[in-house]
């Protein structure tokens, strides 16, 4: 037990499984996740907030955003403190198009993602030459600029925000309901699965290697022929796309958005999810997003000291598990085994 390590334990099971067992593991995991909304009566119940609503936002949407931010911060090592900007762009795209056009959520989704990606490219081209903390402050500024613009121009309704955003149209004949958010949770779950699929695809191939090289030594990477700026912009843009998708979903779930929902705190919280769970490791990041999204609502019984406890948890966990709950995989052991058998 002394050397028990959840990450290696999980990786070990995976490595030892054959193709069919792996499919089974994936299916069981997805099923368990999909059944989460039915666990509302268990110890998971949230005291004040509606359990199934909490599962959608913050939990699932935080997980989605954490996965997106992880591409930027975890995979390619760029510190982005303005991730909320893309979330806001997605949400406002939904809000504005819902207000002015008859488009529904699923029709708006690609537009929202596109708008966020466009913003990502626009911000990325001039600023991604900057490094480390300089990039951090510039992205932070960008996040604030988006919020302040939304607050001060008339076509976003300023501080009043946009209300009356339409609920998504029924899926497979099933209606979205305000008092039962299971369907919405499953929709976000599908988005999360798509994102995981995308990230896994990319990480094992060229883009993943390029990001990994950039994260570890940007100059060496470029001298080894990696077009660093291009891949950094791709990373930034993909992160933006996921943030934008999360924003569209959030607006559709919330039905009302206003600038005060898109403060720097959101960026910081999502970054905390990424680092807390295990930066660079998809499963860690998912765990981080789920825990940090869920925790504040679970501990509402300590009402006033909630944020204090939240802060303490961050400090304590970071001090004892600086690489997060499920750290980045150290693939060596697993690979050696595989290489030996091959």
């Amino acid at each position, binding site marked *: 037990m002394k050397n028990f390590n959840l990450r290696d334990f999980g990786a070990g099971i995976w490595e030892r499984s054959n193709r069919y067992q792996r499919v089974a593991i994936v299916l069981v995991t997805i099923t368990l996740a999909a059944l989460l909304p039915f666990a509302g009566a268990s110890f998971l119940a949230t005291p004040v907030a509606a359990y199934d609503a909490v599962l959608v936002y913050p939990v699932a949407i935080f997980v989605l955003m954490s996965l997106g931010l992880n591409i930027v911060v975890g995979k390619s090592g760029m510190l982005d403190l303005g991730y909320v900007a893309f979330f806001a762009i997605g949400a406002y795209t939904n809000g504005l198009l819902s207000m002015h056009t008859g488009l529904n959520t699923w029709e708006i989704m690609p537009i929202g993602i596109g708008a966020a990606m466009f913003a990502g490219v626009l911000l990325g081209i001039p600023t991604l030459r900057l490094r480390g903390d300089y990039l951090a402050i510039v992205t932070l500024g960008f996040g604030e600029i988006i919020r302040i613009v939304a607050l*001060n121009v008339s076509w976003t309704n300023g501080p009043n925000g946009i209300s009356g955003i339409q609920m998504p149209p029924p899926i497979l004949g099933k209606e979205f309901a305000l008092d039962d958010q299971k369907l919405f949770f499953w929709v976000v779950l599908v988005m999360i699965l798509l994102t995981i699929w995308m990230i896994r695809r990319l990480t094992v191939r060229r883009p993943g290697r390029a990001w990994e090289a950039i994260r570890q030594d940007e100059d060496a990477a470029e001298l080894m022929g990696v077009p660093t700026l291009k891949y950094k912009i791709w990373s930034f843009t993909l992160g933006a796309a996921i943030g934008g998708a999360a924003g569209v979903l959030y607006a559709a779930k919330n039905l009302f958005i206003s600038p005060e929902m898109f403060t720097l705190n959101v960026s910081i919280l999502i970054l905390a999810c990424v680092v807390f769970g295990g930066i660079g490791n998809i499963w860690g990041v998912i765990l981080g997003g789920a825990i940090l999204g869920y925790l504040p609502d679970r501990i509402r019984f300590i009402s006033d000291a909630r944020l204090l406890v939240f802060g303490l948890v961050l400090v304590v966990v970071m001090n004892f598990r600086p690489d997060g709950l499920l750290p980045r995989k150290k693939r060596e052991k697993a690979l050696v085994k595989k290489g030996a058998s091959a």
Partner: protein
Amino acid sequence: MFTVFIDQFWQLTISGIALGFIYVLIALGYTMVYGVLRMINFANSEIFMWGTFGAIVASRDLFGYNQTSEPAHGAKLALVLFIQLFASMAFAGLTAVTVEFVAYRRLRAKGTNRLATLISAIGMSMVLSEVMRLLTASRPVGSPRILEKVILVEVWGAQIRLDTLITIMAAGAIFIILERFVKLSRMGKAIRAVSMNEDAAKLMGINLNRVITTTFLVGGLATGAAGFFYITVYEYTKFNIGFTMGLAAFTAAVIGGIGNIRGAFFGGVSLGLAEVYASAILGTQWKSVTIFIVLVLVLLFKPSGLFGEAVTQTRA
């Protein structure tokens, strides 16, 4: 659009400089720590906030001033202000050292990734601001007026008020003292040695922990002094004021070139001016946007800030 700017130019300039000097001192807190650890001390904004409460505790609880008291005069004025300054610096200095101890030390000993430290510091700043929120029941706290805000002279339509003058002069003096400390004292030299090359400094027999604690302390003292001036000028504080001031000061530090003390000075003053000018010309709601655009422009041409060293890793 420009009428206010032209009309009130000198007044705006003086206000901007006074505000800028407060930023300078907070920026020092960021820049000192950054210089040594290469890390953003995210909790510095809350260290500032605790500093402001130091000044209030001193005047209210030590000297029994309240909102309706008459301002102090003569020797008593000097005494109260001095004790307030001391209290602010002590509060902030202690907070800073605590932050270092709780949020940084263990992680640094492990030599771990920077982001863990960043999140640890963010957690710590949440704790600091929440503790103060609970202590003050989320309410704003007013400071008794100690210093009467006499208008000394008017030049070109600009008023030079006593508090403005004191802020500029005293903050300037504190800045110079700290700058000299880092430049000339033994400990200051050790701090600079560590910021240039940690490993080499260790080999030279410098006690790293002591240097880092001192750096946090000195940064905390500067930030605390800023808290005192803030209270003297605005006579108001709240558990959440740290965020805005901290963000502005951090931006100032970056514009100047984070890690560079002279950069913090230049960045702070120019940020104060930029903020006031932008507010006058474009409207106060656009001040942050203007500042960030200026920041991006500066970084595009000088990727490490105006006084910063180049961070290109290629020295192969």
